[in-house]
């Protein structure tokens, strides 16, 4: 083991043990490891953002670009200056303009992304399951594919019914306060099971990832100590 490997190995080992010490409760060592991560990540991001975003997109064109390039950079430069100035008490309103730009940009991406990136592809996938050609596309049992398409549709309808906000039209303060309109209430019961199944599966995935991380750390500690003691 080289000196460099030894040093970084000790750093990794110490940090691992310090974080895992949280299992016996919040303590000094866990906090130190946590705050080291905060400091290092903040420093690393500062370097990355400056070198990979601000330098090529903003500073370089202003310092070394042609007049045309400088002209194009003028708007983001003004927005950036307003954003910085807006953090000072006296110029509090200046930050509104760049933030409004960001809000508008994000809102449009949210709308477009939600509709064309999620809603439509997901709906298409449900409907495509009903294409007779897809039932016979691969060898196997077509009735299983038909059943899967039906379950998929019922599951999606049930899940969507679960989220209905409105309640059944009744007088105030009746048990029906918590109920959706009748046909949605029936579908919702199916949806509840599908949501539970989905969250359960996702949970199992998260648990397995976390377990793998635990195994990785234990393996790292064991491996490092073994090598430290002279093993290969």
């Amino acid at each position, binding site marked *: 083991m080289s000196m460099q490997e030894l040093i970084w190995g000790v750093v990794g080992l110490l940090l691992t043990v310090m974080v895992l010490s*949280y299992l016996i*409760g*919040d303590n000094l060592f*866990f*906090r130190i*490891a*946590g*705050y080291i*991560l*905060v400091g290092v*990540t*903040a420093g690393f*991001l500062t370097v990355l953002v400056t070198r990979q975003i601000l330098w090529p997109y903003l500073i370089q064109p202003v310092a070394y670009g042609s007049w045309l390039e400088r002209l194009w950079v003028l708007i983001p430069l003004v927005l950036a200056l307003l954003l910085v100035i*807006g*953090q000072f*008490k006296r110029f*509090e309103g200046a*930050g*509104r303009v760049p*933030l409004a730009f*960001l*809000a508008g940009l*994000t*809102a449009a*991406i949210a*709308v477009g*992304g*939600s*509709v*064309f990136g*999620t*809603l*439509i592809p997901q*709906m298409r996938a449900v*409907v495509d*399951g*009903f*294409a*007779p050609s897809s039932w016979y596309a691969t060898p196997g049992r077509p009735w299983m594919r038909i059943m899967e*398409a039906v379950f998929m*549709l019922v599951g999606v*309808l049930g*899940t*969507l*019914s*679960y*989220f*209905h*906000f*409105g*309640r059944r039209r009744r007088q105030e303060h009746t048990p029906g*306060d*918590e109920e959706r309109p009748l046909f949605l209430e029936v579908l919702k019961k199916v949806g509840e099971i599908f949501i539970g199944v*989905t*969250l359960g599966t*996702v*949970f199992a995935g*998260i648990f397995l*990832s*976390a377990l793998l991380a635990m195994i990785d750390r234990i393996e790292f500690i064991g491996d490092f100590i073994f090598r430290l003691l002279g093993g290969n």
Partner: protein
Amino acid sequence: MTWTQIGWTVIGLSAVLLIVFSILFKGKRQYKVRKFTSPGVFQKQRVAAIERGQARHLVLGDQFWSRSYPALGLHALATLPSLATSEDLLDGEQLLSAGAGELVLFARQIVEGHYQGGFSTHLPVFLPGPTPFSFLAGFIPETGLHPPGSVGMFGNFGLTAALLSEAVELRGGHVFAAAGSITAQAALFMKTQDLLIGEEVFLLPGGFEPTAVNQAGWVTEDIIRLALMILLVIAAGLKMAGVI
């Protein structure tokens, strides 16, 4: 009608319905929604925290934007005005944190907007860490330094949400989670009782403050959801018949 046209119809219809219902609900009309208990429980816990002199913490997510959930950051910010009012900020025990610089800047702007007298030098908005894991690593010790009586989680979270929630509960705090991603919800499902699941998160901010616009949001979502459900059934039938 193509799928793209359906997409544009959804966007157009949302805008029209939002405008129409916002005007309609400005009067006495109301959209009657089901009873959701968890936002009410959260508000009660916040009051209880004030009475005990404990901190109340609003967490606006560990990211502003994500590819799968692009609107969650904006949603967390839309919820903020109904929770961080000037009265809430009076005792100095209302903390706001986020894991992204953009969220911090927006949150400061929103809080500042609530101060009638102008910008406060002591805006309680901070960034425990700039990435999801460093956010968690910075947040957990903060719960030891300022034990929170109540914590509300809004916006984008990943699987680390479970550790965050656990840290608060270990300090005796109450957690309300309207964390948007499926991963966060699956991780929080077992222990966090006051948890909004899936699209339920968009019950907020109306769940705290049922203004005309918020009610218009509910009814618009209900109408379009129903329309999409009907569309799915029709499209499946047409696909099976070979029409589309």
